[in-house]
């Protein structure tokens, strides 16, 4: 177990270095830097002034040296300076990540129990009316992309019924202004996870050991809870863990739509404004999140499925 963790963390670090280097070399190519120089100092700079600006800011040194410097700083927790917000990256990124974190927290709190319940109820008796109704509901919610459903909900609940607000102010959330962005993501996500859970449940319910349990004289609900559930959750568990990184980047649209200034919003504006250090930091955060959720998913897998062992 410890060896497994150790190996995985080494892999995580290596991936981190490779990916950050790739992003780094892409954002620091010459034309991009020139654009940055023009943006930062003076739009009417001459070519030689641009060159000297680049020289002054250290962008003329070899790529590896520059990357080494960035890496050295990043390791000590210093992710550089945001050229757009004109303050250190650390002061920009963590609060935004916090905002998205709150959004994700509510999304997961609602999605997981609802989706699993729908999936299990639908899958435990395949082909019944309950199954069909729930499956149609699930297919419907996943088929509508958030940028459509978001607008739809805004029109219905905000413009028409006036129950909720169409704009969510980060850092000052209330039920009123926060309900719509959460609803938009939850509705989309529920369908997806519910369908996975249903498929997995159907497969498990058809297996021989479920028949064994039933013919032991066990009541149907006990069979579902004691024998089917744990085996049926193995596949959705992986999917749920994959939702974390997806949400982090997937929320971009929803955050933009409801003007909620979180991580997705920051990522888009950083790329937009050519904010090199912020873009890099966002990349690092995303990679760390992807790899740690995968790690958690692998460990969880072992606990759910006794046939898998750490190697």
């Amino acid at each position, binding site marked *: 177990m410890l060896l497994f963790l150790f190996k995985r963390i080494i892999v995580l670090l290596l991936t981190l270095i490779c990916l950050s280097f790739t992003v780094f070399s892409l954002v620091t190519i010459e034309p991009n830097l020139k654009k940055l120089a023009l943006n930062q100092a003076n739009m009417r700079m001459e070519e030689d002034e641009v060159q000297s600006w680049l020289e002054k800011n250290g962008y003329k040194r070899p790529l590896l040296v520059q990357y080494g410097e960035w890496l050295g700083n990043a390791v000590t927790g210093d992710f550089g300076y945001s050229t757009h917000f004109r303050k250190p990256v650390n002061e920009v990124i963590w609060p935004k990540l916090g905002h998205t974190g709150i959004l994700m927290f509510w999304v997961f709190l609602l999605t997981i129990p609802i989706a699993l319940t729908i999936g299990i109820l639908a899958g435990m008796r*395949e*082909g019944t009316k309950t199954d069909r109704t729930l499956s149609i509901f699930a297919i419907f919610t996943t088929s509508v992309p958030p940028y459509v459903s978001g607008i739809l909900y805004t029109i219905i609940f905000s413009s028409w019924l006036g129950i909720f607000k169409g704009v969510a102010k980060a850092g000052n959330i209330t039920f009123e202004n926060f309900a719509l962005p959460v609803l938009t993501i939850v509705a989309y996500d529920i369908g997806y996870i519910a369908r996975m859970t249903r498929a997995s449940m159907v497969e498990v319910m058809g*297996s*021989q*050991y479920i*028949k*064994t*349990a*039933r*013919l*032991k*004289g*066990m*009541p*149907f609900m006990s069979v579902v809870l*004691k*024998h089917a559930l*744990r*085996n049926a959750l193995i596949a959705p568990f992986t999917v749920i863990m994959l939702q974390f990184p997806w949400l982090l980047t997937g929320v971009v649209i929803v955050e933009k739509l409801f003007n909620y200034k979180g991580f997705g919003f920051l990522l888009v504006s950083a790329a937009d404004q050519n904010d090199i250090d912020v873009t890099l930091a966002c990349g690092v955060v995303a990679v760390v999140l992807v790899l740690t959720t995968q790690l958690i998913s692998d460990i969880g897998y072992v606990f*759910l*499925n*006794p*046939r898998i062992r750490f*190697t």
Partner: protein
Amino acid sequence: MSTSILKIKDLSITLPKNADRQFAVEDVNLEVHKGEILCVVGESGSGKSVMTSAILNEVPGSLNITSGSIEFDNQDILKLPQKELNELRGARISMIYQEPMAALNPSIRVGKQVDEVFALHRPEIKATDRKTETLKLLEQMKLPTPERIYSSYAHQVSGGQCQRIVIAMALACNPDILIADEPTTALDVTTQAEILRLIYDLKEIYNNTIIFITHDFGVVADIADRIVVMCQGKIIEEGQKEEILMRPKEPYTQLLVDAMPLLETTRTPDQSRTDEPSVEVDNLHKIYKTRGGQVHALNDASFVLRNGETLGVVGESGSGKSTLAKTLIRLEEPTSGSVNIRQENFLALSGADLISSRQKIQMIFQDPFGSLNPSQTVGFMLMRSLELQGKDPVEAKARSLKLLQQVGLGDQAFNRKPRNFSGGQRQRIGIARALSMGPDVVVADECVSALDLSVQKQVLLLLNDLQSTYKMAIIFITHDLRVAAQVSDYITVMEKGKMVEFGTADDVFNRPKHDYTKRLLDAAPGKDWHPPRLDPKEAAEIAKSLEKSFS
């Protein structure tokens, strides 16, 4: 006279609309006597499993019980409310299954699964005492180290041990009736013998009634009191064991019994031959590297086989017989050793030479469903392999049609796809495909084990005929000693990767030297039964008239 414990009356179960017949079970009437072992035999699709699962009112979702009743203890099981049905299941009527590994929940410790039966049906046993009861039961099932087994998961114990655990679960409440659905089919022959012994011994103690479903007449001969023969959803014949096995009345039963291969050898090879061998295998090894060690899957395999001869390779699962097949045809590269085919070093070949020499050694696979590409027509498959040998399309087509004729399929098979054929027909196509390459050596890996008895007999006869025409050497891998006895000139017995015995079929069967061979022969089901033979002409006539009545 014996009293009846269970009465099935006018039971009919319908199949879904698009099935090949209307009823899975049609108008079945059956009386089960207290304390007997009743064997229900039939080929695949005969409805034997569906009928018996109806006894617990649990038929697959797509089937419907349309009429009939099942009387047990003065009640109709089919009309019991769910709660009372649950009280019956597992307590008074319980069941064991074909795939013991699949019958156990993979993520719950097996001991806990046995505990559950006590929790459900024996409330008088306190929760804290359940484990003790379970351990007692596991010990009675002759499981070694019950304590360790109790806390194992299904994947950590062997197939035979899994079956013992499932039996423990079924017998936990000492049921009146035990239904066993092919409980030993997935097991090795020695394990099968042990499990049958266990079921028999436990019955002697508890005096349960056993309904035993099987396709294997050997097993029937060993354990049955009474036999019911099913075909196409109907009960065709019913009677005491002696009657059915020795003097079957119905033509269908006569054919089934006739198709049972004898445990007697039929061939005697000419041991003085010195002509060029078709295949010479010397000192062949295959070692698989695994985590923390290595597995010697094939250890020093050596033999010589000449044209027209068949070597039967027998052994249990994991004995290395399939590894032998795979390394011979170089699906897997052997670790060391040599294989000469027609005096050419087959293992030294590579590239184009290897491809052209592969024609000399061909394989017939076990699974007639998985081994044919479902999207190609039979004609395309055969033509392709002939064209690869450089034949022009006209010649290739003529040859393909002839091959189809020879394997007993007509010209109309040429343009059809594998899904249009039954298992036996597909195996014939597989044989035609192998022969289309004009091989010197054919490796047949369990090529009849997925087939029903009557079909198996036809395929074996076909192989025999084709061998006398084409004179190929056949390496025939099988777990079934009876089949090996029918087809082999020489037999080798494999155990743990080694050929522990090698000799003429006659020597191996009648004068076995190695202990393991003796144990295998001893474990063969139905060895004391000498099934009556029909005159081949008569058998063919019965088969023809039956075919008419079925279609």
